[in-house]
């Protein structure tokens, strides 16, 4: 009887621990930037979502393409309609694993390597992306900068407007997590 109680307690503590290691962020900031001969392309969103499992290193990001805001509304329309086809592929996502073990009880900034699959425009590419994790008194935040090549994700750039658009886009992602229940 006592054993069962202890085993149950142990099992519960595992369960509890597992859920405590889950971190979520509902307002991931994502910036995209590309420099082109005629005009720079710049957009940002703060409505990305992310989940990080500190115990296993699993990490996932997702963002609605239509949430990216451009200064030029026509550029935003083109981005959604002609390039990203957000009616067909409404979200871009990344799912992977942090290679390093991060001790979330120790304050500091740690470089991390994340390997996983990046899904943009319906094309999934395996990627290894560098980033940093910052732990400050239990608060977990992440930042990363990486490039996305348009050809890799079958994002067509018509010859007619090729001067306007760069072939690769620089992405900046930053997320501050809170513990999920």
């Amino acid at each position, binding site marked *: 009887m006592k054993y069962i109680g202890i085993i149950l307690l142990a099992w519960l503590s595992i369960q509890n621990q597992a859920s405590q290691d889950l971190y979520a962020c509902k307002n991931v900031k994502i910036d995209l930037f590309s420099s082109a001969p005629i005009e720079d392309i710049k957009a940002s969103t703060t409505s990305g979502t992310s989940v990080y499992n500190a115990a*296993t290193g699993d*990490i996932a990001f997702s963002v609605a393409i239509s949430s990216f805001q451009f200064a030029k509304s026509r550029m935003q329309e083109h981005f959604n309609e002609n390039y990203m086809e957000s009616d067909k592929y409404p979200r871009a996502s990344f799912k992977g694993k942090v290679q390093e073990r991060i001790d979330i009880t120790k304050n500091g900034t740690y470089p991390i390597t994340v390997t996983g699959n990046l899904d943009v425009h319906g094309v999934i590419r395996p990627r290894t992306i560098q980033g940093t994790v910052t732990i400050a008194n239990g608060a977990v935040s992440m930042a990363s900068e990486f490039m996305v090549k348009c050809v890799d994700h079958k994002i067509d750039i018509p010859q007619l407007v090729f001067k306007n658009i760069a072939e690769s886009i620089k992405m900046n992602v930053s997320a501050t997590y809170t513990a999920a229940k």
Partner: protein
Amino acid sequence: MKKFASFLLITAISTSLWAQTKPAADTTATDSLMNALNKSEPKDEPVIATFKSTRLILGSTTETVKKNNLNFLVIHRFGDLAGSQGGGKTFFGLDNSSDIYIGFEYGVSNNLDILFGRSKFAQQIDLGLKYAVLHQTSDNSSPIAITLLGKAGVKAYTDDIAFPTFGDRFAYVGQAIIARKFSSAFSLQISPTFVRHNSVFPYVFGNEKDMFALGVAGRLKVNKRMAIVVDYAHPFSSFRNNATGADAFYDPLGVGLEIETGGHVFTIVFSNAKAISESSYLANTQSDWGKGQFRLGFTISRMFSFNKDKKDKKY
């Protein structure tokens, strides 16, 4: 106490084993949390790009110029391609221009535009307001988009017989544009219209000052950059229905190809309507497709943005 410590040890081992042998369970936890996070997002997003330009061929579309953007329009209609006024002697109408329209449309907000334009036809100066009342949404909670258009035009040219007072020079157009994007390639709109000319236009005995008209227009994308556009209107006017022979009126009909580049939209059209302003082409289209009285025309729409992003501009 020892027992308890050993159990702790077992617990710790089992925890690490759990983590190593059953990562699938944790992945599911990550996934389900991710799904929960994304489910809370609204799905009733407004449908964008029902049309690519604020004007299709003849009439206006439900699209508005967004806040702090300025749409500059140059619309041109050449002379009759064939028929008595066309053919080789006018190089198929290219030597003539039946109407030239220069227009500016400024977005006060994302839904409200101020319109200004001048036509060669009747030398009319138009001032108008366009307001997007309703947007189509992706979840079909609103299956259509509705935009209201109001325009006042003044004919500046000298004609003392037709315009005894200054007030007689005015013409008004009120329009409700109702559109639906059926698929990413096909959009259709109908636009019930009311037209008033303070002095009958054209200035012919028996003509009516007020009339209703109905416009139907569609856009079919052939690829990412190009679309086939059709624009038709029917004025409900017994005077126009009964006019025959040389005085006959015809329903304006335009067909064209719309090409979109980065900041421009070009439309190359054939249309029997000579005029570009709504009040003029609805009231005064006397050219017949069947007689070769249609013309080549084009629309150039260039969008300028005044939103603050100056630092990034390179020119």
